[in-house]
């Protein structure tokens, strides 16, 4: 009679799993979570599957060390898990992990450990991606009779995730309805990352569905933010609104967009409304009041995102608006401090009128300094150098904005300085 049977092995596996699971949970969640009784009942095969994986020796070695070492001396997740993953997991172990990591991410989210929840969500998506690429799910489906039932693993997984997608989107809509300090930015940020993770880590066949879900999420959030902005702006009377009325409207929109990692449509909508508001305030001659500069300050953080979108071709026809914000920002500065904003505006919208005009005046300012050096130069050589610089700056000013009303005066000054030193205007072309 065989004295070591399957029930004996099952008991031994259960005992070893009961000992191993707390260490595995501690490793994956940085000591935050412990296994619940329901976890232990479901996961008794997981340590067995890990031992049978290519990473089995590494897993055994780590477990022996972890069980003997005090908590402070145990290696952390980053030092252990990548080695396991590099060695490889069996498909059965990955199946356990794909299910467990989603549950752990939910628990971590309930406890507001967002970074850890993001880590577990990424691991879960990678695990499902692994299963979809392997034959494991096909084989499992065949054993379950799924093929005869007309089901397909990929479609079934997509169908199952749909419920989670919908729930996550509704949760985000509810978060976006809060205002001011009540906005839970951490949760909002996680929700956006959740869609990004599932959209970027699935296999090619699934990616289209998940990417479209992410686009749907971003579009819905953008529309809701824009609608809220419209409602609040409509309720304000710009002829009488004060800074503490107007600024929070754009501040809330900006904070939401930041938390959602700047969805393209949302950025375009908020920038458009900021531009409209700023031009209205200018027409009302309220552009020298604090509320004007505060609206510009709330719009400025959106500019880098809009610049990226324009460069990537995902935002079309937004160049002028992007440049408008930069010009409004430049106007607050004096002298050379304007130059970076104006050059950035012209980089985005090369024919932007106001940016061209303001930068043209900056070049004339530089021309003025060069002309002063030329007019007071003692040697012809020094005068030649200064006049060359002046000609260069005047030329740039003319190229940028030929209607600059100061150009004739600078041309005349340049000619006089040339005559004083016996030089001709065409003497500086090769300098």
């Amino acid at each position, binding site marked *: 009679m065989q004295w070591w049977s399957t029930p004996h092995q099952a*008991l031994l596996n259960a005992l070893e799993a009961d000992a191993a699971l707390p260490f595995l949970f501690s490793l994956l969640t940085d000591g935050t979570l412990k296994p619940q009784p329901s976890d232990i009942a479901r996961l008794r095969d997981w340590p067995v599957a890990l031992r049978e994986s290519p990473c089995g020796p590494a897993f055994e070695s780590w477990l022996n060390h972890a069980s003997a070492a005090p908590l402070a001396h145990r290696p952390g997740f980053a030092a252990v898990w990548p080695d396991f993953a590099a060695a490889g997991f069996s498909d059965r172990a990955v*199946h356990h992990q794909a299910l*467990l990591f989603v549950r752990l991410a939910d628990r971590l989210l309930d406890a507001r450990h967002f970074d850890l929840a993001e880590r577990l969500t990424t691991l879960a998506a990678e695990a499902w991606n692994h299963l979809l690429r392997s034959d494991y799910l096909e084989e499992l489906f065949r054993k*379950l009779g799924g093929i005869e039932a007309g089901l397909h693993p990929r479609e079934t997984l997509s169908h199952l995730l749909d419920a989670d997608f919908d729930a996550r989107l509704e949760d985000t809509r509810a978060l976006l309805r809060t205002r001011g300090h009540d906005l839970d930015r951490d949760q909002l940020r996680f929700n956006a990352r959740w869609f990004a993770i599932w959209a970027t880590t699935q296999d090619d066949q699934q990616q289209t569905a998940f990417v479209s879900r992410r686009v749907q999420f971003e579009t819905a959030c953008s529309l809701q933010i824009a609608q809220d902005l419209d409602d609040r702006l409509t309720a304000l009377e710009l002829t009488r609104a004060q800074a503490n009325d107007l600024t929070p409207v754009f501040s809330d929109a900006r904070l939401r967009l930041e938390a959602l990692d700047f969805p393209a449509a949302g950025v375009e909508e908020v920038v458009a409304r900021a531009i409209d508001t700023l031009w209205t305030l200018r027409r009302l001659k309220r552009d020298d009041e604090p509320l004007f500069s505060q609206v510009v300050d709330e719009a400025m953080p959106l500019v880098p995102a809009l610049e990226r979108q324009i460069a990537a071709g995902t935002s079309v026809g937004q160049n002028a608006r992007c440049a408008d914000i930069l010009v409004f920002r430049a106007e607050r500065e004096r002298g050379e401090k304007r130059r970076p904003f104006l050059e950035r505006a012209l980089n985005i919208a090369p024919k932007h009128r106001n940016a061209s005009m303001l930068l043209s005046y900056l070049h004339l300012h530089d021309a003025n300094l060069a002309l002063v050096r030329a007019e007071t130069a003692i040697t012809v050589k020094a005068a030649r150098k200064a006049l060359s610089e002046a000609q260069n700056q005047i030329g740039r000013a003319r190229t940028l904005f030929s209607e600059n009303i100061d150009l004739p005066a600078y041309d005349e000054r340049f000619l006089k300085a040339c005559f004083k030193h016996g030089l001709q205007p065409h003497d500086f072309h090769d300098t």
Partner: protein
Amino acid sequence: MTRENPFDVLEVDPQSSSRDLTRRLKKLAERATGDERTRLQALWEQVTLHEADRIRWALLAHPRPDAADGRGIDLLRQAIGPATSRLNANAPELTIDDVICWPDESPSSEKQPVVELRPPFPWT
């Protein structure tokens, strides 16, 4: 994807056929009463009424090969019970009289009974 899975709750192999599931649930229902029986009925319906639902639940259940059936260890733990804690609040307080062996001054020559410190060996 994080809803309670009938296969996990019932601790049955997700690759079981509908017939095996029904047989297993019937056995559990025989020992159950009242609300627990109703709950088992609901779980049975989730995994047997619609084939597509059974397959979906099975996909989302943790693999449970025979060598990982840990129900035996749970039953053993229920039978044996937990070890007594040293932090037992009902432990008697020791006094000096318990520590020092006073000479027996009783006129009776009857010996004191020996205190049994350990539970009797259950198997003989």
